[in-house]
């Protein structure tokens, strides 16, 4: 009986693993350093440039302070500061993903079109990332930043992966079109700012 139960659980685990592996996208974007450089010419991504994002969600400092009962007030203040900083960074991350999406749409209009299926997949992917970030922001606002370290790094990785995808796309554009694209992008940016 226990042997059969073990086999059943093992089989369920294997099935879940294989389904996850099938659904997980194995795509790796081969964005050249030049393409990444070109992308950074168009889109600045401050949330990804901030290298210490994982430290915002790291609870080790907080645990150290909270372990001393005399520092309870300091610990609460520390936690609140970290929460605020984490929320600011998540807001920045959300802004970046929207900026990248907008840029990707401009690339489509400029001629980097991969078909309707790819366009739908891009939209779906961005919506999922936005939902992830929104959920994370809500969770951090309610429960603080320290329980969501893994989710935050996953959200960052998703945005980074999407930026590489955009860099790959921009890398496929002929160089002579880049100036016109940059002009159009600046116009759009100014339009949205005003």
């Amino acid at each position, binding site marked *: 009986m226990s042997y059969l139960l073990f086999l*059943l659980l093992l089989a369920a685990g294997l099935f879940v693993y294989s389904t996850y592996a099938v659904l997980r996208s194995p795509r790796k974007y081969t964005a050249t350093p030049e393409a990444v450089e070109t992308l950074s010419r168009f889109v600045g991504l401050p949330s990804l440039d901030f290298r210490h994002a994982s430290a915002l969600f790291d609870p080790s400092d907080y645990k150290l302070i909270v372990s001393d009962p005399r520092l309870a007030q300091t610990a609460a203040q520390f936690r609140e500061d970290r929460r605020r900083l984490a929320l600011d960074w998540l807001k920045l991350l959300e802004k970046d993903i929207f900026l990248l999406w907008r840029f990707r749409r401009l690339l489509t209009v400029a001629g980097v079109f991969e078909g309707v299926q790819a366009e739908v997949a891009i939209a779906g992917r961005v919506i999922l990332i936005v939902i992830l970030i929104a959920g994370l922001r809500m969770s951090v606002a309610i429960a603080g930043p320290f329980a969501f370290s893994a989710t935050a790094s996953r959200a960052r990785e998703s945005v980074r992966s999407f930026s590489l995808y955009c860099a790959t796309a921009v890398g496929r554009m002929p160089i002579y079109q880049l100036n016109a694209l940059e002009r159009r992008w600046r116009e759009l940016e100014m339009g949205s700012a005003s």
Partner: protein
Amino acid sequence: MGRLSYVVFYLGFTLQVVLLGRLVKIKIWKHYPFFFAYFAPTVIHSVSAVLILLLKPQWYQAWYWADYLTSTPLRFAVAWEIFRQVFPANSPARRVAGCMLVIVLCTLAICFYVRPPVDLPLPDVIRKMGLADAAWILVVLAMAKYYSRPLGRNIRGMAFGFLAYVSTQVGLYSARELFSALRPMWSLLTSLAFTYMIVVWLFSLWVYAPNEAPVIPDERVRSAALANWAQQVNAIGLAIRKATRL
């Protein structure tokens, strides 16, 4: 078979025919002959099943088990295809991966031999064969990860679709003995598992996307580099001897 079972069965059959057509159309079967050696008989099996269900439904059950037992060993052809694609004959890691595979399968065989069947011999044999298939695929995937061998779209889909299918076989044949309430849904669950595998294969084998060829050290280049290195070492030795004489 219930009505839903028929729907899933015919859906799976249709997808099988589509996949067969695609494999033949883009001639992908030439690249994966062992995979095709398993897949083609399953299509014949499904055609026969359709004919028997239409003409002599009372024969279906007996025919199903006989056919299932003869086709189950053929699943090792898929496992072998995955192994030979991930570690081709000229791959330096093939021998290590092969040894690891033999060790794991032998260990599994000893465990099976030591442990007597817990219930009827037929489900026990099916479970053990499923476990051996799953172990094979897991070892190949682990070795591919260890040697950083990338999996192409075709092999990735083939491996994970197959792993999902064999794990459902192990799980279903265990659950069948544990929960008798599952028995009326039996044909539906097995058809669903098979159809799921065909869907995964259909998506992954729609286009030919093979694995990257492994980097094989060129013997000529290696010996030239070795000669160059020896020459450089001699030159350094000569320079040191000259310097010490001075």
